[in-house]
């Protein structure tokens, strides 16, 4: 029974994607202007050429490198800062106004400073991604800590968990993990979107975002669309992978807590 439902779901997914592709192909052929809407077959041909030349592989590796630098920094800064703000009220009051001023500034606005501070390097690209990703992680970590049930904290204290360090790591952190996981997931989405902005200023000759700008300047919209779709697909894979890791390891204890 479950198996047949699974098959039905798969058929539905495949039909949905296939329908979208057919509508896209027909619409593009009706418009018949490659620069307005390249057809699926033109994008497919561009994709195969980029793969055969090895170009797509180099671009993907380059972008993932920037993403790893940006996300790594965002996690390293966002989670500890969120914990500190969520647990220590004085620290929260001191830091919160600064965070609230910086948070609304779009990552794109930081590009000039990224170049000035880090040069035309992968760290400059990583910085722009960091700016996009750090705040969702920080805010969710903060919220997770603020919402730690008081009963858990009191129980911990009764059972001899007195020190702040013990309360944070043994009580509040496990309770806040679902919120932190959500923050990292949202941060990854924003960070991946920032890859295109981060590569706007040509830190290297490769990268998915850089190639979007490059081919955009040459008006090859079939290649631009190919890179856009590759960006989307990689984001999807990263998200699925993260969800799997979180559900299978990070939050395995939650299995059965909720339906």
């Amino acid at each position, binding site marked *: 029974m479950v198996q047949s439902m699974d098959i039905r779901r798969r058929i539905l997914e495949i039909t949905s994607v296939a329908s979208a592709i057919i509508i896209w192909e027909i619409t593009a052929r009706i418009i018949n*202007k*490659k*620069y307005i809407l390249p057809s699926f077959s033109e994008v497919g041909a561009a994709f195969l050429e980029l793969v055969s030349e090895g170009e797509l592989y180099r671009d993907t590796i380059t972008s993932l490198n920037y993403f790893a630098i940006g996300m790594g920094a965002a996690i390293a800064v966002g989670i500890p800062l969120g914990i500190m703000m969520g647990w220590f009220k004085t620290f929260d009051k001191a830091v919160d106004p600064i965070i609230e001023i910086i948070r609304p500034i779009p990552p794109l606005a930081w590009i*000039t400073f990224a*170049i*000035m501070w880090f*040069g*035309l390097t992968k760290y400059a690209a990583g910085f722009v991604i960091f700016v996009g990703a750090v705040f969702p992680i920080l805010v969710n970590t903060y919220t997770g800590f603020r919402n730690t049930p008081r009963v858990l904290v009191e129980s911990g204290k009764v059972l001899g968990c007195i020190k702040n360090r013990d309360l944070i790591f043994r009580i509040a952190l496990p309770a806040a993990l679902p919120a932190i996981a959500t923050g990292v997931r949202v941060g990854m989405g924003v960070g991946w979107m920032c890859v295109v902005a981060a590569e706007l*200023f*040509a830190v290297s*000759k490769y990268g998915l975002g850089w190639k979007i*700008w*490059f081919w*955009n*300047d*040459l*008006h*090859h*919209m079939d290649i631009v669309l190919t890179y856009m779709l590759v960006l989307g697909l990689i984001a999807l894979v990263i998200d699925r992978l993260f969800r799997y890791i979180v559900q299978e390891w990070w939050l395995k204890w939650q299995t059965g807590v909720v339906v």
Partner: protein
Amino acid sequence: MIIQPLKILAAILITGIILVSGCTAPQEDEDEPTGLTELRFGYQPSTHQIAYMAADANGWWLEDLAPYGITSTEDKLFATGAPEMLAMLAGEIDVAYVGSTPPLSAIDQGLEAKIVAGAQTQGSDLVLANDLPYESPQDLIGLKIATFPPGTLQDTVLRKWLLDNDIDPKEDVTILGMGGAPAITALASGNVDAVFLPHPNPTVIESEGYARVVVQSGEMWPDHACCVVLVTQELIDEHPVIVEQIIRTHIKATRYIIDNPDEAAQIFSDDIGVPYNISSKSIQDWDGEWVSDPNIELATALEYAKVQYDLGYTDKLLTQDDLFDLSFYNKIIAEMDEE
């Protein structure tokens, strides 16, 4: 009963007005309004395109085009030719003052437009940081050079010149595509070693004192074509008289700025906001020349088409028929010679 004679009188009057207006209308079709009332221009913040700014500042676009029904003009300023061509592809501009290379990839990808007049030749410089030595192109190996994005004239000329000097533009140097202002910032902050940009950028950089001009684009590629006037095929097909007048006004403006370089510098300064002393010095120092004859730019434009095809920027090797419509200019010049 009175209504009937009134109707007859009104009919006679209307017929009379139509006949009279027919008699007093311009004799030549060329002077009749074409149905188009607004023209949209695209240009860039460069001394290369002062002809557009001069015609605009002197009110010539509206004055000269008014007999053909044009009541307003609009212009859009673009950092480089690439976004300007995207705007033309999107149907946002009718006439573009642009380098002769950005139209290549756009036309290759389906833009229906033609070069109908020249605007200027040469006029870009390679500017190198003061602390770096320069004796020959070989000194550039290993350096980071910022220039306009792929497919622009500067990108094409620079790459060809490097290749001509046995330097692989993909492996031996790092060429970074960006607009003029970001390129200057990158040079000032030491993030790139050199820039190759159109005027007045080289003069702006030299005036700051942290870099100097080492090669002018005329040395890289003597008499190379630079900016042109590009109009949409729709304008050519549906409003040829307007295209003809655009070229006439452009010729007038080009002659004006050649004869009056100080006024040209002032017009540029007022339009773009560059100080007068910088724009004036730029016009004195550059190796560029304002022209209006597209025939002068034809040969190198076709060479650019070959370079871009070899670089893989265009899918097909574009020909003169794909890129140029010389008929308007040649007709105007023949008429001017007769006069």
